[in-house]
């Protein structure tokens, strides 16, 4: 009686399909999602550059000019260019998703999605303009 347990009406033999490693290439939205997740690496990259900048600032003017010179090398220009593209993708995709995650109710009515996304974009523009103003004046 060592026959393997076969199919019987009381012992279903399920078929389970394995998820392919390339599942994220199956549709455009999956690929967009994975790309959005990858943008976190570039967010971290910008944060690290900022920390590096603060450190060299603390070390004095010589260290700071060394930092600036390093940033102007082709490698860093290219890296920063790519990182900027990913960060834009990051910001735009998350701003577009914001209305789904944030439900704001005013006088019992749900604030329309466009208003919430629009408010996020408006805050982005205002903050960017403020930063640009500070930088350009200095």
């Amino acid at each position, binding site marked *: 009686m060592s026959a393997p347990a076969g199919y019987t009406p009381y012992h279903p033999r399920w*078929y389970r399909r394995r998820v392919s490693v390339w599942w994220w290439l199956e549709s455009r939205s999956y690929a967009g999602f994975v790309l959005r997740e990858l943008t976190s690496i570039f967010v971290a990259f910008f944060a690290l550059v900022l920390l590096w900048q603060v450190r060299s600032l603390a070390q004095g003017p010589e260290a700071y000019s060394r930092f600036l010179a390093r940033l102007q090398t082709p490698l860093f220009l290219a890296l920063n260019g790519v990182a900027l593209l990913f960060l834009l993708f990051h910001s735009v995709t998350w701003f577009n998703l914001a209305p789904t*995650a944030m439900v704001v109710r005013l006088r019992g009515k749900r604030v329309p999605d466009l208003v919430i996304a629009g408010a996020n974009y408006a805050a982005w523009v205002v903050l960017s303009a403020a930063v640009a103003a500070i930088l350009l004046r200095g």
Partner: protein
Amino acid sequence: MPPTVSLAVARYRPEEESEPSVQTYEVPFRKDWVVLDALNYIKDKLDGSLSFRWSCRMGVCGSCGMTVNGQPRLTCASFLSAEPPGPIRVEPLRYFPVVRDLVVDITDFLTKLKKVKPWIVRQEEKPLAEGEYLQTPDQLDAYKQFSMCINCLLCYSACPIYGLEPTFIGPAAIALAQRYNQDSRDEGSAQRLEILSHHDGMWQCTFVGECTKACPKHVDPAGAIQQYKLTSATHWFKTLLPWGGR
């Protein structure tokens, strides 16, 4: 010759084969037919051995969810005329074990659904003599969208996280937890938060957003999960405050 359309249907007969195969059928092409009508035509006229689930034919029962041309859909709401030319691929819902042909086993979901206590939890029931629990239209509005779920599991089939992490409690179960959390008569949100803050709960979700796109009843499970995350995070921050308490 009346026009016909071919359906490439996934077959799996566990007593005969160890892996699914594809069988192609030619069915009459009618403008008012949905994929489910074509499957029923096959079952009645061409091949009685084909197995699939269906019941209401009108997007209420949630039984006829399948993968049509690669997308999780209700077959009763997928018109033949809306599909691109060529054979229409009909496969079982993704990420669930296939029992036979187009029938999947949904025990996993049913177990998870029960975990989130999808019913009204009261600390103390009001005596009958005091009458019913009243609710304003605004209070109804707060959860009505989430209550439209028909458990068709298209959202699970659309969720790559569920495919990769089968222990994830999943979109519909969390949306249904939210349905009761948002209900003014319910007092069980603390119990549900306890369950859904665990590793397999809402934090597994990385907001792919496909569940919301797949949902035929516009429940927006992705929205429910993100809103729940916000509640959970706010709750956690409050416990950090000296006056917050637990």
